[in-house]
């Protein structure tokens, strides 16, 4: 995958959020509509193409945890707010690339996490669980060793304690289980087909209605991995 090769040539250990999502999209995983904007002109264009409300994120290949650095602005509803947010964010970004990721805002209360890790014994393993800020606190997760089959994906989703979140609950529609299963299988494939990929974090994967969308993503590289 080009986006991986480029990063490795540059000596980087991670893909940016935008690059990570390109990788995911190449494997059929639904991601947010988004564009990079390097200046106000590009910002206005991107925002109008994507449609308000939008989210702006400070963009840099070395940013792993954006919320902690005050680099996200959500629910931006018009151009005025967008420009203000752009200026605030780019002040805080420390490197030369003063770019901002302009992203559609996904509305959904249910946040899931999907990940990939490379186990020294078993190779690439896919993780699924409750996402968002509770991921590390609840650790309500399940694993399967890649390659995953459909029944593996379905089983692992039912295994987490909070699995009922996938049902039609509290007025929200049931999650599209097939779409979720496809995502889990695809993440496994990324691990099997790209030895340079060490870890993947899709958190949150938000259910917009019934449809899962990857809202944030991180791909960690290890050029010596196999």
């Amino acid at each position, binding site marked *: 995958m080009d986006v991986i090769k480029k990063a490795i040539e540059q000596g980087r250990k991670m893909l940016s959020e935008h690059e990570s999502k390109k990788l995911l999209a190449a494997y059929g995983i639904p991601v947010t509509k988004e564009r990079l904007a390097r200046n106000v002109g590009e910002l206005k264009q991107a925002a109008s193409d994507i449609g308000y409300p939008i989210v702006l994120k400070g963009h840099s290949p070395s940013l792993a945890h954006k919320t902690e650095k005050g680099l996200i602005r959500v629910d931006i509803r018009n151009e005025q707010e967008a420009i203000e947010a752009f200026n605030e964010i780019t002040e805080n970004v420390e490197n030369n690339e003063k770019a901002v990721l302009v992203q559609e805002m996904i509305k959904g209360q249910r946040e899931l996490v999907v990940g990939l890790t490379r186990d020294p014994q078993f190779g690439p393993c896919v993780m699924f669980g409750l996402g968002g800020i509770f991921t590390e606190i609840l650790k309500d997760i399940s*694993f*399967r060793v890649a390659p995953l089959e459909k029944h593996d994906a379905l089983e692992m989703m039912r295994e987490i304690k909070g699995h009922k979140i996938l049902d039609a609950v509290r007025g929200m529609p049931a999650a599209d289980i097939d779409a979720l299963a496809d995502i889990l299988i695809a993440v*496994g494939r990324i691990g099997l087909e790209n030895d340079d990929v060490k870890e993947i974090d899709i958190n949150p994967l938000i259910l917009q209605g019934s449809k899962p969308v990857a809202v944030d993503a991180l791909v960690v590289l290890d050029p010596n991995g196999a």
Partner: protein
Amino acid sequence: MDNKKLQNMRYLFNPSNVAVVGASQNPGKLGFHVMKSLTQGGYNGEIIPINPSAQEIMGHRAFKSLDSYAHDIDLVIVVVPAKFVPHVFRECANKGVKGIVLITAGFKEIEDPLGAELHEQIRSIAEDAHIPVIGPNTFGMINFHAGLNSSFTPEFSRIRKGKVALVSQSGGMSHLMGFLAIREDMGFSKIVGIGNRLNVDFAEMLEYLSHDPDTRAVALYVEGIDEARSLLQAARDCTKIKPIVAYKTGSARVGDMASASHTGSVAGDYDIYNAAFKQAGIIPVVDSQQLLDTAKALAHCPIPSGNGIAILSGQAGPGMAASDVCEKHGLNIARFTDSTQARINELLPPLALRTNPVDMGPAWYDASAIAGIVEAVLNDENVDAILLYMMFASANADAIERMTGLLQQWNQQKPIISCLLSPPGIWDDQVRDLEQKGALVNYPTPERAALALAGLWKYANKPQRFNKLNEPNKPNEPNERIDPMTLID
């Protein structure tokens, strides 16, 4: 595993004769205890002690070396120091020995790199000669159906022969399981300590045991594995024929470190092992007792065709305890058909719950009513398996006797797992008799019984399609699951 090596494994476990290199008269040496195990274990083949300074050991003529024994030797047990082992292995290769149990330690697991060198040296001798080796660094192995105790613990022979094969990475755990089994009145087909796995690892044992007619279920004790993918593939192939239940330790940090030095390998993360086991159709358990309990049920019960459970209890309490366990583990408390329920209502006064779970307490004085209820429920189409509980209470002393004929005749057409508990010496013989006739499988507590049934259901419910690990895109092929009951007499 190459064909010759697999063939040789059959001779390893069923040898026509056994030599002991390092046999000894001295109780301070392991070679003494190995000889004791062989001679006292009921083995019918020839026992050949190899010891350059003895004429005979424990009544068997001793030889100076393997070469000085004129005929072929099937199995050699090696219990001499590590530095002599390469020479012994070369002798074995020259002599066409078919299997080796290498009890000696001091190879990969010690810190001295010389150990690892020796390990590699003997490994290549064994592989070139297609000789399967159990060990090194093991207590040995026992084949109960051949009266063959090739270990340094003669008391393993007190365990009765059965249908579960235990393959263990720890000697200590093997002794634990073995002696616990005696107390639980359970038997084994084989107990194998794979030790430091020279060229026989879990994968090779599973391949061999898949076709071992003495074994109906396999129990594994795992600390860390080197060849994870080949284990998973071997497990997927094996579970198509017979069930595997596995207990893995080393999830705690401390455990992990002990694992690394104990087996010289890198242990993987607990969650991932659990996942990998499930994907391979292996049933994971969380402690030693559960390993035995689940293996016992898997070896002695038919596979249920569904998860509809009937709980029949002589007293309400144990039945309740069981219901809780059942619900937690995906078992369904079945709804009886109208005719079954009507029959139960005839036999039980309306003093307690007559629907499932059934409290048979009100009929405590009437053993034939109890038998009638059991019979009706056995024949109910919504019921796939039965949990049968009875606590002894003087007035119901003949309850087991009254059910014996029916249970024997029924012969577990559907699994019957029981907790029939009395003070020692009262019902023991009757229950043991029923177990040995295959009429039911008994446990000391209602929860253990329910959990064992849950294990049975886990095996019944596993996905039928297992693709090879290297071919993620291959279309699924329907696999016929072979009912292990049909493989044995």
